[in-house]
């Protein structure tokens, strides 16, 4: 016998656009910081010239985050409770995140200071700490939504990996664009070499391939998963969130750049800069469907 729901209370989805922007910013920041660490932490010397720009970009993006997050609170002045003993709650993912968001920028500032001072030893030590914090901060954005078993779309252990891979590729994409603009203002000998940009684009391509693989795994999970996962995919993501999920993330953010970077266009500036722009923007689509799409189905319950 068919049952049709005719009345229910209308529920809001509590986290909106500010949270999606925050997830994107933290991701791009972590991705940029990984590039910065290539030279000083992992010892790849040809990446040293871009280390300072990358860490400044990472810090700059992270500076917007507290403004968004604190203003998104109902009681902005109480944000300090997140760190106060007696209030801090060790089982809450958001409590871990508040410590990470606090310590990550501090470590980046110290790291940047040693990069400016040209102190290889301390830049490496602090860089290792900062890179762990950078990855953890973005890992946390994945788990803060994953650890809600009632949100079927988000409740997958792939979440942190999807977030970290998105962070890596959007960070590289954004970095390439920043370096391109920066090169306009630099003298010839200080300009970042084109070969390095090409190499970064190559890394970005590997990241895109891995991201596509993760999306495929997620797709398989929803197809062979529970009814909730299946309907969440078909009727929420493929229908209501079609634009951010398919158009913005999959087509604009992943497939188009992949085609560009697998074709002879990857040797051209238009190809590399174009792919970088598409990736940096397209990853925002994932943040939208992940946050808003994950909450959508339950709002009818």
């Amino acid at each position, binding site marked *: 016998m068919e049952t*049709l729901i005719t009345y229910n209370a209308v529920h*809001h989805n509590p986290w909106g*656009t500010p949270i999606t922007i925050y997830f994107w910013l933290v991701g791009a920041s972590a991705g940029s910081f990984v590039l910065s660490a290539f030279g000083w932490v992992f010892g790849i010397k040809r990446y040293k010239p871009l280390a300072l720009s990358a860490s400044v970009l990472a810090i700059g993006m992270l500076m917007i985050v507290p403004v968004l997050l604190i203003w998104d609170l109902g009681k902005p002045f*109480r944000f300090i409770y997140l760190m106060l003993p007696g209030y801090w709650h060790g089982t809450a993912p958001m409590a871990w995140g508040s410590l990470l968001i606090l310590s990550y920028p501090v470590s980046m500032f110290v790291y940047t200071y040693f990069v400016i001072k040209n102190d290889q030893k301390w830049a490496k030590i602090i860089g290792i700490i900062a890179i762990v914090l950078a990855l953890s901060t973005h890992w946390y954005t994945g788990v803060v939504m994953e650890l809600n078993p009632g949100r079927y779309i988000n409740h997958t252990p792939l979440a942190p990996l999807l977030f970290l891979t998105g962070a890596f590729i959007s960070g590289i994409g954004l970095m390439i664009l920043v370096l391109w603009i920066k090169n306009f203002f630099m003298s010839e000998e200080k300009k970042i070499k084109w070969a390095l940009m090409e190499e970064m684009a190559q890394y970005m391509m590997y990241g895109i391939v891995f991201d596509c693989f993760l999306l495929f795994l997620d797709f398989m999970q929803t197809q062979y998963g529970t009814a*909730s996962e299946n309907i969440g995919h078909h009727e929420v993501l493929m229908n209501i969130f079609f634009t951010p999920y398919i158009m913005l993330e999959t087509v604009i953010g992943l497939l188009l750049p992949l085609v560009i970077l697998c074709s002879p266009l990857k040797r051209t500036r238009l190809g590399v800069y174009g792919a970088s722009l598409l990736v940096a923007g397209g990853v925002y689509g994932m943040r939208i469907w992940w946050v808003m799409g994950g909450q959508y189905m339950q709002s009818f319950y």
Partner: protein
Amino acid sequence: MTTENKHESSAHHLREYGAQTPGTKGIPGTRRYSMVIDLRKCIGCMSCVVACKAEYGVPLGVWRTWVMVADKGRYPDSRRIFMPRLCNHCDYPICVRNCPTQATFKHEEGFVLQRYNRCIGCRTCVVACPYNARHFLPAKRTNNNLPKLVVDKCTFCIHRVKKGLVPACVQACVGGARIFGDVNDPKSEVAKLTAKEKVTVLKPELGTSPSVYYIGGDWEIMDETHNYKHRSAQQKEEFNTFKRNHHGDAFADIVEGENTMHHVGKNMSDFLASIPHKFHDVVAALKKLLFA
């Protein structure tokens, strides 16, 4: 205590962490307040909703308790079914373990409560709650002394229970469909009903061990996925109208059938518009201090 409850208690002992007392369901010498809702007696009059709204001055657009309505079958073989909803006061509440400031906690007698003075309004608990039982209080209240911009929820009327009364919704129920009491006390009506009748809970697979039991529950109205798949055109329209016209909070109000990206932008403008309200009280206090 039913076999089902015994199984729940032993299976979830590992979930006793966070700012909450351990699960007390079925443990002798402890109290565990619970509610049984006999759906065979519910007539969908919404008295419980009105009583709750009146008891707490619950604002428009949010609910501590509400009644879902569904039409089952096809004419002429059809009937209307109801399902009252409220906080399930879980034995292992996800909202409690996910609250970053210990604003929400579980009382030793089973009430899951909210401390407004600790709540920062991050809405993590609203995201965590699988039953939509929590809501965010608006910036403007009819009574200015009531809490604003924090999360609120059903308290099982602890203030009444402590005085020996039943919750307001139970008191107002004309059909006697809502029954409240200590499920650990074998003499209580809820204990007798849960032992005698076939009771069901919402989303048992999540391991939250809810304390709201339904007698005569229809799985089709109790299942979230079925609910979503079989939402009526009327419900969709109500939902869309509400979301389209809602302003002032940074909620992810996406309107089905309209441009998603437009509503993503609208959420952002709502967020920006909500900022002055959040600072209003502090600015007013500062003004008072400086210009008194």
